[in-house]
């Protein structure tokens, strides 16, 4: 139904008459509490408490399922059974699907049906469910706009505004909806900047889950370095990219208690998306890397890129294989990295490089798609690649330099 402007205004007036109640606003504890969460003195510590709760829940929930049930299920039952029952041991087919026949845990086996399934279902799925559950509760409670108001001043320093926190938070679940949600930003400049910064510096929930599960002791350092990169390169991009960054006004809704039906429905939609979009990529990633190993491509690439990896980034040349897998799934790449022998600092550097060197294929496709609304596909693609190459060499090289200065490389 198409309405003329006059008719549209009359309809709005009618809806407002029937739904809006007028009267003096009464200050209650609940309304004052809502105000306190947007004032910096009280709001920032409360936001820290919320983020603490977020990570503590993530840890407890994902740890319960992964360490408590999936690790014994895959390592004690599934792996020995499939190693024994699968035919053609020693063939390339066995190597691709089952991996190492002598492996004693699912991470080391590295076959599609062993490591592939374990990473996708045993590690990433609980992390994704925990992440989306908390995000949905925060969205439905009305806390997200408050967080946007709180971080508005900081994000203005890099040419964005408070609502840019929404794509940031969504990207912590998956970069694909994060990039898609940049269309809510006002200008092409902001959309372009946000897409680049998200896809480089914000690790997805699956990657976070694997990092927390395999290298929890380095998690804080990695996140801190990535966050610093987000703001440093955000500031640079704001200076370099032409365009405007306007102010916005936003409505902060009252706090509400989320309903179980809404939360479960939203959670199901998001988790369903993970099953259809992410799991095939994880399995494909394991298969591709195994094939590349079999044909000798990984060794060839390791030898060619070795000097750059060891000289510029200070990491072993064996990290080439995870980097290739990282193009399909970053979580898989981090899982692979943890199996390579290297020092703690090299592991931190490798995970940072995995995060910033290139977005995963799903995010990359979304950047191309969204690029049409952010200055043209070619412009966005060219700008993205230029930024990516600059970031990976500068930010990755800087980390190596820091390590050398600290004497930990």
């Amino acid at each position, binding site marked *: 139904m198409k309405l003329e402007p006059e008719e549209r205004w009359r309809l709005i007036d009618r809806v407002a008459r029937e739904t809006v109640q007028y009267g003096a606003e009464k200050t209650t504890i609940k309304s004052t*509490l809502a105000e306190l969460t947007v004032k910096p003195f009280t709001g920032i*510590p409360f936001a*820290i408490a919320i983020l*603490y709760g977020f*990570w*503590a829940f993530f840890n407890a929930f994902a740890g319960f399922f992964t360490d408590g*049930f999936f690790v014994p299920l895959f390592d004690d039952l599934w792996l020995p059974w499939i190693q024994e029952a699968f035919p053609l041991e020693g063939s390339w087919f066995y190597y691709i699907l089952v991996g190492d026949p002598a492996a004693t845990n699912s991470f080391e086996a590295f076959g599609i049906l062993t490591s592939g399934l374990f990473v996708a279902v045993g590690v990433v799925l609980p992390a994704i469910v925990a992440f989306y559950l908390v995000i949905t509760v925060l969205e439905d409670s009305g806390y997200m706009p408050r967080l946007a108001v709180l971080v508005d001043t900081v994000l203005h320093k890099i040419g964005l505004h408070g609502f840019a926190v929404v794509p940031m938070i969504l990207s912590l679940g998956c970069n694909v909806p994060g990039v898609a949600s940049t269309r809510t930003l006002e200008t092409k400049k902001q959309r372009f900047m946000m897409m680049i910064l998200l896809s480089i510096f914000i690790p997805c929930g699956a990657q976070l889950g694997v990092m927390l599960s395999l290298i929890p002791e380095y998690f804080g350092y990695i996140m801190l370095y990535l966050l610093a990169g987000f703001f440093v390169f955000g500031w640079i991009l704001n200076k370099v990219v032409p365009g405007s960054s306007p102010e916005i006004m936003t409505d902060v809704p009252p706090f509400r208690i989320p309903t179980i039906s809404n939360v479960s429905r939203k959670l199901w939609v998001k988790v369903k998306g993970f099953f259809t979009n992410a799991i095939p990529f994880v399995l494909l990633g394991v298969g591709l890397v195994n094939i590349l190993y079999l044909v000798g491509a990984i060794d060839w690439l390791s030898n060619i890129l070795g000097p750059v990896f060891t000289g510029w980034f200070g990491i072993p040349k064996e990290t080439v294989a995870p980097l290739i897998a990282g193009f399909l799934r970053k979580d898989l790449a981090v899982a692979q990295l943890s199996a390579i022998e290297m020092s703690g600092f090299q592991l931190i550097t490798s995970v940072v490089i995995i995060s910033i060197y290139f977005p995963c294929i799903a995010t990359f496709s979304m950047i191309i798609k969204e690029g049409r609304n952010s200055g043209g596909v070619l412009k966005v693609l060219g700008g993205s690649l230029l930024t990516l190459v600059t970031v990976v060499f500068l930010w990755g090289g800087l980390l190596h330099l820091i390590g050398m200065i600290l004497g930990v490389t």
Partner: protein
Amino acid sequence: MKQKTFNFILILVGASALIPGILELLFTLTGKTFTWGEIAFQGEFMFWRGVVLLASGVFYLTAVYHTSRTEKRAQAVLASLMIWIVGGMEILSVILSSIPGDGGRWFNSTQGFFSSYTGPFIPAIFLLPISLVLVLLIFGEERKNEG
């Protein structure tokens, strides 16, 4: 509730949150752990727990100086919410880690299950009851005033 009584409770709860908050930060910065009876200053994310407890302690104590009755009470509720987040997540973590078994067993033994709940616990757990009573008092008073 009289303003003086309410201020006294705020100071009491505020100090009970502030002191362990400072201690958690100090133990993190010095890289040490400490157990005092059933209270443990250790575990993952201790620094952030310390920050949250310290901030909630400051909120309770500064609420004493608010002249606005509603703002004073709202700030105390906010501080209590922060304690509940830390304490609640710890309880969840204890519950979830008490269920799975080890050494080839899917579920924990009855003895192992109950021993998970014997402590020691982080300071926020001990602040849960008193902060809960405070919040119940605040909302009870608001309902009484409305009625």
